[in-house]
């Protein structure tokens, strides 16, 4: 019962480098999300997806890209890493039919701590 799996758990990047944070879920959830958590703060939404092939921006999308080619996977791409992207990144998933009674909250991955130096 894996739930939401994120890799890597830790990463140090140099300014200007690129990387992809991987996220996979095995619960057949239709919704997936990427959040970032800055020190002492709550989580802020970067991007989300309501199903394979459909993605949309959240509150803080600048500097990131996503794709959703399958229901299970939702990778987050950083193209030109900047110190402002130093954060902890969480992937999450949920299932919703759109009916108000159907949403049971998110399942989160264990996070990726990214440091840009």
């Amino acid at each position, binding site marked *: 019962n894996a739930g939401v799996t994120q890799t890597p758990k830790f990463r140090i990047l140099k300014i200007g480098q690129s990387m992809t944070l991987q996220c996979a879920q095995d619960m057949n959830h239709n919704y997936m999300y990427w959040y970032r958590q800055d020190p002492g703060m709550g989580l802020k939404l970067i991007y989300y997806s309501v199903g394979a092939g459909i993605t949309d921006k959240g509150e803080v999308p600048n500097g990131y890209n996503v794709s959703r080619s399958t229901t299970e996977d939702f990778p987050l791409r950083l193209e030109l890493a900047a110190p402002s992207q130093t954060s902890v990144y969480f992937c999450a998933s949920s299932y919703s039919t759109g009916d108000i*009674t159907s949403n049971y909250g998110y399942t989160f991955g264990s996070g990726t701590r990214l440091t840009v130096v």
Partner: protein
Amino acid sequence: AQTVTQSQPEMSVQEAETVTLSCTYDTSESNYYLFWYKQPPSRQMILVIRQEAYKQQNATENRFSVNFQKAAKSFSLKISDSQLGDTAMYFCAFMNPGANNLFFGTGTRLTVIP
């Protein structure tokens, strides 16, 4: 825009005692969800309790219960019989079903003292 406010950055409680964490939110929606998440030092985000705004009855999960005051836009979490394992950051979160985005407060760091 939805906002979630947690006015208590840090709290502490003696083991076996009861503690209440505060949360207020702002929204013009009538139907929405409210959540409390726990984040222990392991960093994992764990769902503690969930409340649907259309339900008047307060949600309860074992030692965790909420006091949901819709008119006041208040959603506090009560932890009874506090245990050392309850030491964690606690985040209040709001979701508008139509947007499917969780808005988080800045968190309350709870320490349970032996």
